[in-house]
């Protein structure tokens, strides 16, 4: 009986040590929803390929806690965003704001697209012009007819 008790005790103590690691849930689902919608748009600075909402790093935990407090204080989403940008720079935002330094980033792809379209059009136009118009003589026409007849004859085979 005793070993079973011991095993049960071990299992139970394991359970409690894991339970300790669970992230604290906010009591208010509305706050939690806003937290997720804000932090999904933000980069975790420690593991840069993860969003702040998805990261399990210590800093992300702290920042989520901070955002939660800001929401409870009644700050708007924009205020919370600027709170983060003041500290970590535009880098935290997955969607960089449109300003002179990011103009190239936002407009660049369209400029490249325009250059591509212009290049394609000039190429096509030049290729059209390169095709020279050849006038066929009667002899040529006869030869062509002969060849075509020959071919259709072959096709009948």
């Amino acid at each position, binding site marked *: 009986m005793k070993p079973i008790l011991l095993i049960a005790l071990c299992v139970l103590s394991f359970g409690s040590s894991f339970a300790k690691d669970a992230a604290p849930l906010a009591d208010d689902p509305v706050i939690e929803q806003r937290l997720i919608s804000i932090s999904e748009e933000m980069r975790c*600075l*420690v593991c*840069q390929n993860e969003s702040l909402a998805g990261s399990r790093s*210590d*800093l992300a935990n*702290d*920042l989520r806690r*901070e955002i939660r407090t800001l929401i409870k204080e009644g700050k708007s989403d924009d205020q919370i965003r600027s709170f983060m*940008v*003041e*500290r*970590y*720079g*535009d*880098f935290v935002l997955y969607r960089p704001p449109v300003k002179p330094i990011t103009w190239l980033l936002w407009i660049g792809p369209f400029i490249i697209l325009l250059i591509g379209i212009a290049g394609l059009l000039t190429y096509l136009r030049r290729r059209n012009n390169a095709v020279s118009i050849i006038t066929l003589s009667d002899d040529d026409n006869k030869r062509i007819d002969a060849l075509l007849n020959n071919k259709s004859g072959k096709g009948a085979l």
Partner: protein
Amino acid sequence: MKVKFLLPLLLFIVLVIFLAIGLNRDPQEVPSPLINKPAPAFEIPQLSETNQSFSPASMKGQVWILNVWASWCVACREEHPVLVELAKSKAAPIIGLDYKDKREDALAMLATQGNPYLLSAFDSNGRVGIDYGVYGVPETYVIDKAGVIRFKHIGPITMNILNQKIYPLISELQKS
């Protein structure tokens, strides 16, 4: 006609240049928006004198260095001898910000490895760290006489950085 054949090669060279620049930059190093902004104010207890607090306002009028460290941070141990060297030079006072640490661990580390800090502020929950945009310890700030952040370095300071950036900057800031 020859230019046409060279075009792919030229494009390739441009691509290689872009990749080379990209690879040689540290993606962990995010430019701080705090440069040339006043150092955020705070008032928290000191590490060793628990009943005394530290506030950046008390450093007004001198050039000083804020170094974010922790006993659990391996890179900080690597950096520590450089900080001791910096303290010996007496170029500027170094204030430590002990980030999310255990008091006894932090004091033990300073006892064994030497204490380069004039004092350390004890940021137990990392709240001050958030205001300073700390995301990877160690981080080092050079703050001028007016309390404006002039330089930030993320990651351990090396003798190279000390000699090439921090010492010249301090002596320049001392003059003004």
